[in-house]
C-alpha cells in the first residue's frame, strides 16, 4: 500500500471519526483566532457550535453497525456514537456553564475552550479505541489538557498545588499503564484489542499477559479514581475551577470507563479480572462513601462521591455480561448529567473568591430561598445521586446492580446498596442545608449573606434542563437501556461469526 492509497482510506474513513476530526480542527482554529483576537468572546461559541454539530452527527449514526476506522485504530458504530454523545454533551454543558463562571473569576481565556475541545477529542479517541496505541494516545491527550485546566487560576496556590499533584501522580500512573501495554504486546504480539485473545493462545505466555492486564487496569483505575488510586481526586476536584471539575469528573470518567469496557469486552477472557474489579469496587465504594460523610466542603464531598460512583460502575463491570456493560454505559450517561448539574450549581454559589475551595456547606444555609431554581435543581441532583426514584440515578443503580446479582455477586451488591444508604446522609444534608437551615443559625452564613450570586438566565436554564433530563432519563430508562444492551449483543454476535 503506497501513501496515496493510505490517504484515500483516511479520507473515506472520515465519516467514522467525524466528531474527533471536527472537534480537533475547531480546537486548532480557536487557538489560532485567540492568537490574533485575544480572549475574544466568540471563542467559546465556536467550540459550542462544533460540539453541537458533532452531537447532531453522532445522533444520526447512532443506529450504525459496529465497525472500525483509520486502519482499525478506533471503533465506529452505535457504541462509539453513544460514548461520544456522553462526552460531547458533557463538553457542551461545560462550555455553556463555564462562560459566565470564568467571567466571574476573571479568567475568560480563549485557551480554556481550545483545551476543552482538545480534551474532548482525546476522550473520543480513548472511549472508542480499538488498539492499545489509541487508548494511550487518547488518554494522554485528555490528561494533559486536564492538568492545564486544573491549574487555570495561576495566582491561586491551591489551584497550582492541585495541578501539580495531578500531573505528578498522573505521570506516575502512566508509567504503569505503558508498562502494561508493553507486557501485553509481548504476550500477544498485537496491539489490536479483538486480536489479543488469539495472540495469547498462540504464544501461551499467560503470566506475562495477566501481569500486563493488571498494570493496564491500574492505569484505568487511576483515571476513574478507584481506591487506592484515588488520592489525587479530592485535592484536584477541590482546587480546580468548579465547572471544569464537573467536566473532569464526568466526561473523563465516561471515556476511561468506555475504553475499559472495550478492553474487557474485546480483549480479555472473563476469568481472573472479575474478582480483582470486585475487590477494588468494594474498597472504592466503602472508602468513597465513608470519607464523603465528614467533608464540610461540597466540592470535596462531591469528589469523594465521585470516587464512590466509580465503585458503583465497577460493580456493573464485574458482571462481565452485556447487561452489565450496558448498565455501566447508562450509568455514565446519568452520572454525567447529574454531576455536571451539581458542580454547575456549586459554581454559581461561590462567594469565597477561591473557586469554592474554602467555603463550607453550612455557609450556604437557606440559599434555596434566595436562588430557588438553583436550590430546587440541586435537590434533583442530590436525590438522583442518592439513587431515589423517580430520577434516573435510581434506574442507573438498578441497571448496574441487577447484572451483578445475576452473575452471582450478591454479596457485592449487598455492600453497594448499604453504601448507597450511607450516601443518603451526605447528599440529603445538602438539601437540608439549602432549604431547611436558617442562615441565622449558622455563624459562617453571615458572609455568604452579603454575596450577590449573580446567575445568568442561560446558566439557570442549562441547570434546570439537566434536572429535567434526569426525570426524562428515568421515564425512558427502558428504551435507553435496551438500546445499550443491543449494542453489545450485536457486537457479540458479530464477533462470534467467523
Amino acid at each position, binding site marked *: 500500500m503506497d501513501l496515496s492509497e493510505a490517504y484515500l482510506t483516511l479520507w473515506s474513513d472520515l465519516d467514522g471519526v467525524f466528531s474527533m476530526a471536527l472537534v480537533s480542527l475547531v480546537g486548532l482554529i480557536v487557538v489560532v483566532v485567540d492568537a490574533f483576537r485575544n480572549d475574544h468572546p466568540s471563542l467559546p461559541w465556536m467550540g459550542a457550535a462544533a460540539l453541537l454539530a458533532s452531537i447532531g452527527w453522532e445522533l444520526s449514526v447512532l443506529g450504525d453497525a459496529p465497525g472500525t476506522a483509520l486502519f482499525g485504530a478506533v471503533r465506529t458504530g452505535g457504541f462509539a456514537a453513544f460514548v461520544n454523545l456522553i462526552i460531547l454533551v458533557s463538553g457542551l454543558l461545560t462550555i455553556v456553564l463555564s462562560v459566565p463562571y470564568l467571567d466571574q473569576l476573571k479568567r475568560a481565556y480563549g485557551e480554556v475552550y481550545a483545551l476543552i475541545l482538545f480534551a474532548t477529542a482525546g476522550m473520543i479517541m480513548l472511549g472508542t479505541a480499538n488498539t492499545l496505541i489509541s487508548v494511550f494516545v487518547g488518554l494522554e491527550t485528555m490528561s494533559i489538557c486536564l492538568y492545564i485546566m486544573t491549574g487555570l487560576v495561576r495566582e491561586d496556590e491551591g489551584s497550582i498545588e492541585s495541578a501539580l499533584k495531578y500531573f505528578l501522580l498522573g505521570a506516575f500512573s502512566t508509567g504503569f499503564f505503558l508498562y502494561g501495554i508493553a507486557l501485553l504486546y509481548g504476550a500477544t504480539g498485537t496491539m489490536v484489542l479483538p486480536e489479543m485473545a488469539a495472540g495469547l493462545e498462540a504464544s501461551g505466555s499467560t503470566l506475562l499477559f495477566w501481569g500486563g492486564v493488571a498494570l493496564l487496569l491500574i492505569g484505568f483505575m487511576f483515571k476513574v479514581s478507584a481506591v487506592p488510586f484515588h488520592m*489525587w481526586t479530592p485535592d484536584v476536584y477541590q482546587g480546580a475551577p468548579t465547572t471544569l471539575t464537573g467536566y473532569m469528573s464526568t466526561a473523563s470518567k465516561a471515556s476511561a470507563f468506555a475504553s475499559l469496557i472495550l478492553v474487557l469486552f474485546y480483549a480479555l477472557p472473563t476469568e481472573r479480572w472479575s474478582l480483582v474489579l470486585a475487590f477494588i469496587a468494594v474498597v472504592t465504594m466503602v472508602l468513597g462513601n465513608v470519607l464523603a460523610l465528614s467533608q464540610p466542603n461540597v466540592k470535596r464531598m462531591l469528589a469523594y462521591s465521585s470516587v464512590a460512583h466509580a465503585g458503583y460502575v465497577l460493580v456493573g463491570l464485574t458482571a462481565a455480561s452485556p447487561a452489565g456493560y450496558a448498565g455501566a454505559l447508562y450509568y455514565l450517561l446519568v452520572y454525567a448529567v447529574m454531576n455536571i448539574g451539581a458542580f454547575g450549581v456549586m459554581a454559581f454559589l461561590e462567594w469565597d473568591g477561591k473557586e469554592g475551595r474554602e467555603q463550607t456547606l453550612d455557609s450556604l444555609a437557606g440559599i434555596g430561598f434566595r436562588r430557588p431554581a438553583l436550590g430546587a435543581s440541586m435537590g434533583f441532583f442530590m436525590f438522583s445521586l442518592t439513587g431515589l426514584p423517580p430520577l434516573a440515578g435510581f434506574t442507573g443503580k438498578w441497571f448496574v446492580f441487577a447484572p451483578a446479582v445475576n452473575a452471582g455477586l450478591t454479596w457485592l451488591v449487598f455492600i453497594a446498596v448499604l453504601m448507597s444508604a450511607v450516601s443518603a446522609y451526605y447528599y440529603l444534608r445538602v438539601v437540608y442545608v439549602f432549604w431547611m437551615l436558617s442562615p441565622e443559625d449558622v455563624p459562617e452564613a453571615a458572609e455568604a449573606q452579603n454575596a450577590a450570586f449573580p446567575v445568568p438566565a442561560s446558566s439557570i436554564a442549562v441547570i434546570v434542563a439537566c434536572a429535567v433530563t434526569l426525570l426524562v432519563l428515568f421515564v425512558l430508562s427502558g428504551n435507553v437501556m435496551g438500546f445499550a444492551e443491543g449494542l453489545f449483543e450485536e457486537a457479540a454476535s458479530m464477533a462470534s461469526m467467523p
Partner: protein
Amino acid sequence: MDVSLLVRLILLLPLVGALVNGLAPLFLPSLRQSEGLIGTLGTAVVAIPFALTLYLFMTYGGDPVVVDFYTWMAAGDLSLDFAYRVDELSLIMTLIVTGVGGVIHLYSVGYMHGDDGFWRFFAYLNLFIFAMLNLVLANNLPVLFLGWEGVGLCSYLLIGFWYTDLSNSAAANKAFIVNRIGDFAFLMAMFLLFSELGSLDFDVLLNEGVSALSASTINWAVLLLFIGATGKSAQIPLFVWLPDAMAGPTPVSALIHAATMVTSGLYLLARLSPLVLNAPVIMAVIAIVGALTAIMAATIAIAQYDIKKVLAYSTVSQLGYMFMAAGVGAFFVAIFHVLTHAFFKACLFLGSGSVIHSMEHVEHELEHEHGEDMSDFDPQDMRTMGNLGRFMPSTSATYLIATFAISGIPLLAGFFSKDEILFKAFEYGFNGHPYAWFVWGVGIITALLTAFYMTRSYVLTFRGSPRWPKPDVVHPHESPTTMTAPLWILAFFSVVAGFIGLPAVIADGKWNLIHHYLGAPYGGPVAEPELAAHVPLALEWGLIALGSLIAIGGVAWAWRSYSAHGVAYDDRLQARLGSLYDWWQGKYYWDEAYDRTVVRPLLEGSRQGLWPFDDYVVDGAVNGVARLAQGASGVLRRLQTGVVQNYALAIVLGVVLVIGLMLFG
C-alpha cells in the same frame, strides 16, 4: 383515525389540563381569577376525549385493540408496559368517565364560582379524570393499580379541598388510610398472581390464568382483589370512609364518590370475570357482603337528616347491589347498573349541590341582611328545607326524575338495571346456588327501602312547608344554567339509559343490547356462568311485576307519610321501631367500634410499645451506626495527608495488591 393516536389524546388531554390548570396559576397568581379560562380549559380536556371515545365506540370493530406506548422497565420476568386496551368494557367505562365527568366539570364552573381555589379544583378534577382513564384503559394490573392509586390520591385531595376546616382534612385522611388497607390486599393479589403466573397482562391473565393457576390460588387472588375492591368501592368492612368523604365539594361527591371512582371495584371484577367465575366460594362471599352492605346502608339512609349523607349511604347501598350482581356471576349487569347509577346518582348529587348552594345563600342573606344568628344553621340539613320545589323548579323536577329512577319506577333507567340484578340473583338460585336466594330476598327488601328513603329525601326537601327562619322574607333561588343544564342532561339519561338493557322477557332477550355488547357469549370481554335451568316465562313476568310493585309501593308509602306529617314522621318511625331505629341513626356504630377495637389500641400500643422501641432500639442502632461511620470517616481522613509522596505510596501499594490478586488470586 389511528387508534393509538386517539388513545394517546384521550389519556393525555386531561393530564395536560391538570398540568396547565395546576401550574400556570400557581406561578402566575393573576391567572387565578380567570375562571372562564380555567373552567373552559378544564371542561374541554374532558369533553374532547369524550367525543374521541364516542368516535372509537362507533368505529369499534369487535376485536380488542392493545396500544403499547412503551416499556417502562423490565426486570427479570417482570415487564412493565404502559399498555392500554380498547375493548367493549373499557369503552363503556371511558364513556361514563368522560361523559359524566364532562357534565360535572361544566356544573363545577357554576358551583365553584368565586372560590379561591377554583384553579386548584379544576387541576385536581382533571388529574382525577387522567388517573381514572388509566384505571379503566389499562392492559395490565400494574398500570391499573397506578390509576387506582391515582384516583385515591385525587379523592384525598378533593375531600380535603377546603383543608382549613380540620374535619375536612380528617375525612380526607380517613378515606386515604382506609383505602390503603384495601390497596394492600390488591398488592398482595398482584404479588400472588405474578409469582404463580409470571405475568400481570390481562391477555395472559384471562387466557392462560384459568388453566394455569390452581384452584386455591384463584380463590386467594380473587379474595384479595375483592378486599381491595371493598376499600375503593365502599363495602363492608371498609365502607366507613365514603359517608365522611361528603366533606368535599358536591361535584366531587357526584363524580368521584358516586359515578366513577367507587365503581372501579366492580370494573376490576368485571375485567377479571373469567378468573372470578372460577372461585365460586369467593363469589358467594362477594354476593353476601354486597347484600349485607346494601341493606345495612339502606337502613342507615332512612334515619339521616343531612341530604348528602342520605345520598352517600344510598351510594354504598347501590354499590352493594352491584356486588350482589357480581357475586351471582352477572358481571355485565353490574356494569349496566354502574352505568345507570352513574346518571341518576350524579343527577341526585348535583341536585343536592344545587339545593345546598341556594340554602347557603339563604343563610348568608339571613345573617347579613336580617341580622339573624345563623351559627346553628346547617345548609345541608333537610330539617331546615321544605317546599324548595316552588323556588327551584328545575332542580326539583330533575331530582324527582332521578329519585324515581333509583327507586326503580318502571321504564326508568334504574328499573331495568335493578330488576336485572334481582332476576339474575333469582336465576342463579334457581340453578342450584342457595346463597343466591338469600341475596335475592335481601335485594327485594333493599329495593323497598331505597324507594322509601329516596322519596323521603325528595319530599322533605322539595315539598311541604318551608322550615328555615323567616320563610316569607327570604327564599332560595334557582341555580344558574351552568348548573341546571347538567341536571337536565343527567335526568334525561336517567330516563332513557335503561333501554339498552331490556329484560329477557321481551323478545327472548334479543334487545338486551348491553348484554350482547359486553357478554362473552357474544364475543365481549365479560364472562358469565353457564346456566342450565331457565326461569319460566310466566315467573319472569311475575318477578318484574313484584319489582315494580315494590318500587311503587315504597314511593307511595313515603310520599303519603312525609307529605302528611313532614319531618315528624321520623319520630313516629322511631317510636315504632325503637332501638332498631337508634341503631340506624347511629349508623350501626361502625365508627365507634373501629375506634375502640382498631384505632385506639393501635395508638395506645404505638405510644406504649413502639414509641420507646423506636426511640431506644431503632434510633439507638441508627445513631450508633451513624456515629461509627462518622468516627471511621474521621480516622480515614488522616490518610489523606495532602503530601504527594504519600499518594504515590498508596498507588504502589495498590499496584502490589492488584498484581497479587490478578496473578495469584
